[in-house]
């Protein structure tokens, strides 16, 4: 298993954000992590990225608990903007180049060009859509083993979404694991081959989408409606 969580739990005061989730993710697949707001997707990703410490249980990368070593191989993109406000787009790339051996500045420049961003732009003056593109560019310019993208399509226009989708699919090789969370279920259906459904901090199921379609005749969107329909009204 490339990424595995065993009984992982995270509480914030009285609230349990992730509740005993045991989950195994294999390389060579693109996983869609689905669930309504507050279901625990982001918390689980942050636990896997080592940004949050679990209250109980552990997350493993390649058989070892998530650690400083795993950060070298796991590329995480948060849904919130997180760059220092004094940074330019160039500074962001240089920062990643300084700290991640798998980062390619050439690849970064190529992605910036596709996203129509320039190095001299200041991060604090970027629109939310441009910021989302920058986050994608800097994350995908790494040659990591695992990519975890939290809401990668948030605030991005249709054309840019096509670019991002192409970029993600380019990286979906046998050796890599991609995990994406999104509310845009239809969008995810075109990219993912497996889906992880999370509800109220608990894992509902992790399914192979092709198997689900052929054996049950149910699409990802249908399954999403079955699981969350009553909660989302």
């Amino acid at each position: 298993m490339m990424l595995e969580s065993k009984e992982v739990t995270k509480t914030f005061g009285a609230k349990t954000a992730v509740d005993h989730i045991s989950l195994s993710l294999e390389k060579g697949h693109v996983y869609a992590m689905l669930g309504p707001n507050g279901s625990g997707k982001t918390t689980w990703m942050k636990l896997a990225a080592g940004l949050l410490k679990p209250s109980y249980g552990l997350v493993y990368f390649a058989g070892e608990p998530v650690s400083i070593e795993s950060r070298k191989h796991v590329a995480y993109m948060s849904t919130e903007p997180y760059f220092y406000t004094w940074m330019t787009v160039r500074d962001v790339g240089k920062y990643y180049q300084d700290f991640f051996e798998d980062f390619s500045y050439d690849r970064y420049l190529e992605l910036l060009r596709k996203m129509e961003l320039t190095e001299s732009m200041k991060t604090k003056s970027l629109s939310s859509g441009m910021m989302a593109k920058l986050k994608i560019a800097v994350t995908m310019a790494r040659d990591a083993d695992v990519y975890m993208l939290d809401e990668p399509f948030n605030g991005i226009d249709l054309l840019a979404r096509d670019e991002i989708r192409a970029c993600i699919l380019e990286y979906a090789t046998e050796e890599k694991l991609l995990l994406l969370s999104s509310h845009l279920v239809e969008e995810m259906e075109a990219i993912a081959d497996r889906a992880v459904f999370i509800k109220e901090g608990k894992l509902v199921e992790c399914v192979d989408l092709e198997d689900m379609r052929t054996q049950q005749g149910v699409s990802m969107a249908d399954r999403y409606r079955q699981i969350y329909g009553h909660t989302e009204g």
Partner: protein
Amino acid sequence: MLKLMKYEFRKTWFTKLILLGVTAVAEILFLFGLYLENENTLGTSVFLLTILAIGGVLVIGLQSVITLHQDMNTRQSYMLFMTPNSSYVILGAKVLEFGLSVAVTGAFFFALGTLDITLLFAKSGELNQLWNMIQDFLSRITLANGTSILNLNTQTMAIVTFNMLCAWINMVTTAYLAVTVSAALLNGKRFNGLLSFILFLAISWASGWLEQIATQQIPSVETSMLVQGGIALLTAAVMYVATAQIMEKKLSV
């Protein structure tokens, strides 16, 4: 570590640049006053330079604590904690950058002060006389055992500067611990800020008490100051290890 230090410096360079700029203006004012032998200008510039020397070191320390607070409590924390660096390295870079900044600032103002005093003596014989009177007065103040409390010379001034810098480094690393305890252990709890502030005061008091106990039998003020500085640095090292350990084991960003 060096790369992290580079970014730590980058986060604080603007404040340092402003400090340097204002100091340059005050120094020009001083030189101008010296050249014109204008006492008002000289007085104003010396007052400004003294405030800047003390205030500069304080501001650098405060900014370092505020930066750590931001690095643990805002989204910017991801930038730091997603890099493949241990908490010991991350915090070490902060402590070293701050220590180095304080040391360079202290040395800079010490050198500037020495230069300005020398220029002042060279220019004015009266001031030289006044300086000798101050020295003579201070050298008459003795401790119970007959030891002179202070002899104003370059060595003493260097020791006093060292002592003050060590005390400040100690205080800032204690503040690091308090801020980290607040973010990692007390996060979301009531009276979080108050509790961490009480912790800061308690550790500062304990550290001061330890320095007092260790130096009460030392007759020489200079030796006492050196030992105090050493203990302050040692306590700062303990604060560093405790802070890094809490960050490593408990901090969620």
